[in-house]
């Protein structure tokens, strides 16, 4: 097992990930097929037609390189139809923007979106991916986005 996968698997056992599982905020779905893995994240009613959004991640180069992720249809095992992507608040529509790309999220912790968006380093300090980030950085960004104001 290469160091990136080994560290990724170790992070799945850390408190910062496990506490989200215990709170039913997120979890791994199925098996890891390195460098890809599918996670679900809770989505509050009104911001998504689903209670959970499944995201397929590519963690190549973890954690030095940021991951990239897109909404995933776990039944068809393919990218989720953009018509079913979360929508609602302007902040949600900016990130889940299939008109920009259907294979990534417009997020400061997504390696495809980060490219060419250096100002996000200051504007989104908590979520701009650095080698000290981990998978929970991305999951927290999505959770906060989709559950803002929810009970």
């Amino acid at each position, binding site marked *: 097992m290469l160091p990136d996968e080994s560290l990724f698997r170790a992070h799945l056992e850390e408190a910062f990930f*496990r*506490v*989200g599982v215990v709170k039913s*905020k997120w979890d791994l779905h199925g098996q890891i097929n390195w460098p890809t893995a599918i996670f679900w994240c809770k989505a509050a009613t009104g911001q998504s037609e689903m209670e959970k959004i499944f995201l397929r991640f590519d963690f190549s180069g973890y954690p030095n390189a940021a991951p990239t992720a897109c909404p995933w249809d776990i039944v068809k095992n393919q990218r989720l139809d953009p018509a079913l992507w979360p929508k609602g608040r302007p*902040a949600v529509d900016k990130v889940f923007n299939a008109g920009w790309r259907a294979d990534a999220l417009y997020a400061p912790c997504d390696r495809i979106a980060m490219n060419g968006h250096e100002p996000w380093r200051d504007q*989104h300090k908590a979520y701009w991916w650095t080698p000290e980030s981990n998978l929970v950085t991305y999951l927290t960004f999505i959770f906060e986005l989709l559950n803002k104001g929810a009970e």
Partner: protein
Amino acid sequence: MKNENEHEIFVHGEGMKEPKLIRLLKSALHDLEKILREVGVISGSEQRCFFREDDAQELDTNSIKNHDIIHCHRCKNVKVSVVYESGVKTHAFPPSATIKRIQKWAEKEFGLSPKDHVLRTGPDGKELPGDAHIGSFAHFPDCAVKLYLTLEVLVNG
């Protein structure tokens, strides 16, 4: 792998950026403070107070259950001042109060919509996640934190 005689608990604390997963025997709950010193989660001689997440009552560690999320701190309360535009609101919270709870209180105090704001450590500081505990940012003996409530910054550009 956890055995049936153990509890897994998540411990937040003063100056801790992330919770720590602690496994301890159910029969050792009364020794939690000693165990946390042994594993380096707490240092110094001052006695700690324990709280469940978002609970104002001090916790009897013997009542801890599996997967409890707790906070240990030298402060019994944290004086939280929230700045919004030119106004400031202040309230005392237990160290285990989540940012989500404090933001709801602040939005109500300032009469704001509950969906479009974030709490930060400074006017341009890091956004704080809803599950963070206020005690993680407070230090004894000040036991006070100043936060800034700002509009959520959209991902643009």
